[in-house]
């Protein structure tokens, strides 16, 4: 079984090739595709007159701040436009796919982050209300297994639900990693807009989970999160994690050709 996370930039620039690549892979194994799409959410927020808000963490990572209004757009765009477009694309390439969000069937149960630490416009650290973002706490793997057993490709939007019934924005990388672990996937693949982990301009081809953890402080924002989730996932039983470029013609063929960064137990 293969769990693929396709980042928003890769999806925006290369959705057709990514889905065709997923469809090819699905001829020999079960595939779950988790998508991002933050840039599209931003575009629709602006079209609806909602100025997106971003916050910066003390580690320097800029993230969307999801308030109630923005959550509505997030859900519409992620579970609607992007998710269903990918399902339609899979149909075009001859496969059957089902698009769901993490809220469906309790697939991704999360806890709302009550408070987060940000660096404010004055450059000072402050605790603010966490908005509608969540940390995944449980995965309903049986739902995915049931869909996969019917020969379907499962396309998952990164939305979770809390015990209180709130829809929550969850990080797509986190969603893919938790799904891969819960499903005992052979492989977790992060398709991004670079070739993999680059250190001093050189692609790191392979590293153990322990090596990956040691390298984390020297890896830039965004990629460090993928490497951390890759390491945690293989330690938790996923066969292998692979970070590679999602902008090519057949992105998943990079797994076999080894062009990317493999994180192994």
């Amino acid at each position, binding site marked *: 079984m293969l769990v693929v996370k396709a980042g*928003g930039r890769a999806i925006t620039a290369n959705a057709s090739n990514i889905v065709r690549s997923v469809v090819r892979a699905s001829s020999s194994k079960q595939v779950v595709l988790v998508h*991002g*799409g*933050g840039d599209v*959410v931003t575009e629709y927020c602006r079209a609806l007159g909602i100025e997106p808000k971003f916050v910066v*963490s*003390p*580690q320097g*990572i800029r*993230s*969307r701040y*999801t308030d109630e209004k923005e959550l509505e757009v*997030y859900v519409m765009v*992620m579970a609607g436009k992007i998710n269903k477009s990918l399902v339609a694309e899979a149909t075009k390439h001859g496969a059957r796919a089902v698009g769901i969000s993490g809220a469906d069937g309790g697939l991704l149960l999360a806890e709302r*982050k009550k*408070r*987060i*630490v940000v660096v*404010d416009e004055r450059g*000072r*650290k*402050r*605790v*603010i209300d966490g908005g*509608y*973002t*969540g*940390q995944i706490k449980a995965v309903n793997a049986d739902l995915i297994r049931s869909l996969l057993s019917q020969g379907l490709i499962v396309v998952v939007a*990164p939305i979770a639900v809390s015990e209180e019934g709130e829809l*929550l*924005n*969850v*990080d*797509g990388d*986190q969603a893919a990693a938790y799904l891969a672990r819960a499903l005992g996937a052979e492989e977790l693949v992060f398709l991004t807009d670079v070739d993999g982990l680059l250190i001093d301009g050189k692609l790191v081809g392979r590293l153990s989970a322990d090596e990956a953890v040691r390298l984390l402080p020297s890896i830039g924002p965004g990629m460090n999160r993928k490497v951390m989730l890759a390491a945690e996932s293989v330690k938790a039983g996923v066969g292998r994690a692979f970070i590679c470029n999602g902008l090519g013609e057949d992105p998943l063929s990079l797994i076999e050709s080894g062009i990317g960064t493999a994180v192994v137990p």
Partner: protein
Amino acid sequence: MASVSCPVCEAGVEVPDDALEGELFECSSCGAHLEFYLEAGKPRLKLAEEVSEDWGE
């Protein structure tokens, strides 16, 4: 700049006059991470909760 008592070691922590509720400070005496708040308009500090970073998309 006001000096506000650290709830851990009671040392004075310098807090700027324009501090906002939720702003974080570190006690230079005991190293505790502290959160600024107002109680009946008076500046106070409490031990900051650990808030890990794991945000959405």
